[in-house]
């Protein structure tokens, strides 16, 4: 009892004496600077990436389009909307990256075990069911084909999983996930003036 109490006191003293790592910045409402940096970062990535196929090109095209709209909203000081459009552009940019990973057989993280891929597919299936809802809430005609696009990625991923191609299954599942994420960001962007519901 005495030993355990002494150990606890020692740990407290050590924590006070040792230098503490810097705390991550507390998340908060987007400010203009941060949004601008975010958009610039994405712009740079878009410019640097080489589309490996038509899917990647399509994704980059959408990404550019939404990034541009984000910049427009940034110019009109609608920071949250600009941030969400940037996030949508970022998600779509990731599709191009995943297509590149498909070429390089799994990308930098390598091949995942099939069991993990299957669990991922289950989560993606759940997200896919939200796609239509997000599209409705986004009121964005440009994104009208996104739900089908996401389902197509999912179908490819499922077929790949059936044939035991874990890389193709995982990367296509991620693509489906990114499409739904983009839709969600667009839907969130549309909520800026609607207030909290519930």
């Amino acid at each position, binding site marked *: 009892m005495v030993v355990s109490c002494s150990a606890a006191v020692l740990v407290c003293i050590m924590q006070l004496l040792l230098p503490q790592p810097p705390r991550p910045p507390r998340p908060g409402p987007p400010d203009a600077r941060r949004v601008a940096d975010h958009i610039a970062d994405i712009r740079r990535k878009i410019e640097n990436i080489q589309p490996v196929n038509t899917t990647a090109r399509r994704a980059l095209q959408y990404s550019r389009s939404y990034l541009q709209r984000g910049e427009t909203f940034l110019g009109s000081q609608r920071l949250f909307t600009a941030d969400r459009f940037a996030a949508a552009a970022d998600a779509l940019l990731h599709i191009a990256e995943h297509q590149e990973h498909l070429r390089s057989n799994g990308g930098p993280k390598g091949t995942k075990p099939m069991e993990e891929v299957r669990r991922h597919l289950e989560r993606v299936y759940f997200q896919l069911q939200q796609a239509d809802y997000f599209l409705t809430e986004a009121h964005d005609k440009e994104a009208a084909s996104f739900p089908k696009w996401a389902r197509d990625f999912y179908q490819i991923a499922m077929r790949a999983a059936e044939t035991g191609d874990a890389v193709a299954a995982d990367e296509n599942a991620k693509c489906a996930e990114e499409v739904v*994420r983009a839709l969600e960001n667009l839907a969130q962007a549309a909520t800026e003036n609607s*207030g909290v519901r519930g």
Partner: protein
Amino acid sequence: MNRLLQNRLLLQLLFTSVAAVSVAALSAMLIAEAIRSAESVVLKETNQVLSTATSELQQQYLYRVIADSAWGSLPLSAKDLSLRAITQTALRAYPGVEGGFYAESDFLGYAFPTHDSALAKTDVPSAERNWIEQTVKRSLQNGGQAHQVFRGRSDIVVIEATADKARSISAWTMKRLAGRNDPNIQKRGLLLLALGLAALLSIVGTLATGISLQRGVAEVNKGLSRLEKDFEYRLSPRSDELGQISQSINRMAIARGQLETELRREDRLRAIGRLASSLAHEIRNPLNSIRLTVQLLEQKLKTNSIRPQDLAIVKGEVDRLNTLVTDLLDLQRTRQPRPEWQTVLPVVEHCISLLHKQAEAQGHSLTTGAHQPDLYAYFDSQQLTQALVNLLLNAIQATPAHGRIQVYVDDRNDQVEIIVQDGGAGLSDEQREHLFELFYTTKPGGTGLGLAISRELMRSQGGDLVYRANEAGARFVIQLPKEAWCQPQQS
């Protein structure tokens, strides 16, 4: 108890009533138990469903938060939208379940995807808002699950909440169950009540009908018992089914009366025929004798040789005819008996005293005895004296000189018997067969009316005169009733 066991109708009624009440009570208990069990089972199943749904909501929320580093910086409206998408998708597999999240003192992501309306329901139900908040806060306080059941005016509300204390958010789900005040349940309750009332009415009806039937049967039984003694009695009319039986019994009683009257009339005609035949025979014999004697006297008159003895024969036959006519007149003059409740022995002793000297003259011993000295019976003492004297005279005549004649009064169940035992040779089978027929006699100079008259006297007051076979001598028995006897009306 014995009376109850004998009355099977009443017993059946009792068993039926007990069975009906038992079945009704058992049914009510079973129904109540079934309702309670059903509610308990439904609540248990609902708890499991809500627990699973809430866990799934919580799980999907975690996936969503982990996948998005910017989640914390999102405004509530954006979080609300994303969480509603999760709720709508997750709860689609749970019919009747609604739910959402609670964070930062506000409801987020509410959805009821299986709601009946065509439009998606997006507002937290105001009626249950406080209950949900109460459950959610409880889960946040204990940092785990909270489960509560609320009984509303028309339904039962089950709420489940699972908190993620680290993120200060709680996922909740809710389901409404039909309560006791639910219109459908109320309809079922009314139906049960109606069935209960119907059962009660049927029990009361069965009891009332059974009691009425039992009373009716008792009344008919009582009427039948009375009808056995009084042929003129008629069962009172009834309007129910037993009334038809009563009417039938009354009709049968009337028919029986008519039949008896007819039989009596035929008997009388036959008796008159027999009497006329016997009378003709009895009269013809002395007349023939007188005719023959007169013819003889006619011849003797010519020779003037008539003797007094010849006239004595005529005189004797005329006397015989006179006795016959007197006896017949006695038979006709038999008056209506007037039975009274009185002791038997004094009458017997009186008769013996009347004939004591006559018996002594022939050297007979005439003795009397009784089982009990104070035996009572219903009888007309004058008519009993007439019958008993007749029997004693017969006994004196049938008993050889210095014989013994015994008279004994005995108690036999519902009768008192006067037994007259003579010291004669007794009767042959043939004599016994015709013993009480009119004009049958074995006695020289007898009319053959004495025993018939004596028996008629006894029967007219509910008693009888019978011959009882005996080893030695003849034994006649007068039977007197102990109960008042109602003589049937003769038409």
